[in-house]
């Protein structure tokens, strides 16, 4: 079977249960958003899949092969982490050289072009890069590996708005050229909402949602209009959140709503992923 299959993963750190019986599949050629609050277990899950840490129990399969301590399976994955795993004194160009050595599909020309586009100085030492350029360096390497399964853990950490936009564009361009599986773990839900096809929400080590973004957003809707009209329309409904501006109001509702029952002047819109996420992951 193609894709990454995670079966009944459990991971504890002392008394803390970081992953609880996590089972899910990252299918081939899809872009996933792995969403969760701080300490929900996102990084632990990605670290386990990429063999950086060992689970207490459970299995990870990459294209049907056990992934732990399996070079062939691990060579199909590449993880961009928040932390820097490159040697202290290594230069960016040397990291590129060695990544090409370990990943034969590495596209050096694409890497150089992207570095130029982002203004990354490849002659610099990795440790001397700013937080933003540290992230850019790792993003460029990850995209250039051409590995079929790419994991991005907080990919836009320290990036300004322009660079964040450039990253999302580069990701989508690369994906449309040759599709791959990307798993983006991030807090910036609003930003990735337009990029991801599938959503995995993790809460206290448990997967609470794993479905397409479209399906998930269809589980709710927004109603907007004058404050009085919205207040009357949302009576008796499950309200996930409300935004007010002047005399206008937008309410985020769980479940479907029958438009024929709404007062005049009310507009029904698509659910907001971030609002839904906050609702689902609140204590």
């Amino acid at each position, binding site marked *: 079977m193609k894709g990454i299959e995670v079966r009944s993963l459990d991971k504890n750190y002392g008394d803390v249960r970081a992953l609880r019986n996590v089972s899910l599949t990252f299918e081939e050629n899809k872009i996933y958003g792995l969403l969760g609050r701080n300490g929900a277990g996102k990084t632990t899950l990605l*670290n386990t899949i*990429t*063999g*950086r*840490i*060992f689970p207490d129990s459970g299995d990870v399969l990459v294209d049907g092969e056990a992934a732990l*301590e*399996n*070079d062939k399976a*691990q*060579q*199909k*994955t*590449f*993880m961009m*982490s928040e*932390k820097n*795993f*490159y*040697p*202290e004194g290594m230069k960016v160009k040397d990291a590129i050289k*060695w*990544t090409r*050595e*370990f*990943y*034969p599909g590495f596209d050096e020309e694409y890497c150089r072009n992207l570095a130029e586009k982002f203004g990354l100085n490849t002659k610099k030492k990795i440790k001397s890069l700013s937080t933003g350029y540290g992230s850019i360096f790792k993003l460029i390497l990850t995209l250039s590996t051409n*590995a079929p399964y790419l994991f991005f853990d907080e990919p836009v950490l320290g990036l300004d708005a322009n660079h964040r936009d450039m990253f999302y564009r580069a990701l989508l361009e690369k994906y449309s050229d040759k599709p791959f599986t990307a798993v983006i773990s991030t807090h910036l839900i609003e930003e990735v909402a337009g990029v991801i096809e599938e959503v995995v929400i993790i809460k206290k080590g448990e997967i609470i949602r794993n479905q397409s973004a479209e399906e998930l957003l269809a589980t709710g809707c927004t109603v907007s209009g004058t404050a009085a009209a919205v207040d009357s329309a949302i009576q008796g409904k499950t309200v996930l959140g409300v935004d007010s501006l002047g005399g206008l109001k937008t309410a985020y509702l769980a479940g479907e709503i029958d438009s024929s029952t709404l007062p005049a002047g009310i507009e029904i819109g698509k659910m907001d992923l971030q609002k839904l996420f906050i609702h689902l992951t609140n204590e």
Partner: protein
Amino acid sequence: MNIKSALKYQIADGRVSIPVFYLVIFCLMALIPISSSGMGPEDSMSIGGFEIATIIFLFVVGLNSFRETFRMMIQNGVSRKTMFVSFLLLTLVLSVGMSCINEVLLWIGKAFTAGKGNITFQSVFEQMYAPRYMGNPDSIQMIAEGLLFTILACAVAMMLGYFITIMYYRLNKVGKIAVSVGVPAILIIGLPIFDAVVTGGMIYRALGQLTLFIMGILNGYNPYYAMVSALIAFAVLAGLSWMLARRAVVKD
């Protein structure tokens, strides 16, 4: 493929330190004619022990071969097993390579000091096992045995360094403190006092005898005792290192 890349990476890691090491050795050798020029007829000079410097150097290489390499390998999808095997290959490459270079340096040193009766250029191996080669110095047998002896000593030193560094990596803070304080305290203070007060020097005498035995000195200056002992030590250290490396995880 991965083993080849991992080995290549680890070899490249030493691309600066190894030439620097030999530059120092070369400079030391270059000093020989200068320092011997002022010698009088009654003066004598003994030169050697470069292989001890190599052994210490490789011990340090072993000490520096885990943490950064492990993180780099894990980042690049290399398994712990491949990383460990590539380290074993690196040990073999460096031990053989540097021992051969030492042998060449020894030969050059001997060539330069030949005919100068008051200057002796000898390896530590020659000094230790001199009686075995009495009347037959610089024989093929001595060169081959000396080379084998140095290769194994280098490999053990490198593996010992590797074992120590992985052990420290795996230990928690309390464990690190306990080992850092406990081991020197036992070896430098505890054992000598215990030996002097309780056993009347028996422990150190036994350790001395054991050392002479495993080096083959007690058995007709037979270096094969030392070689077999080194092989056993290497196997034990490699086994312990693998036990520690196979479950190592990335730390922040």
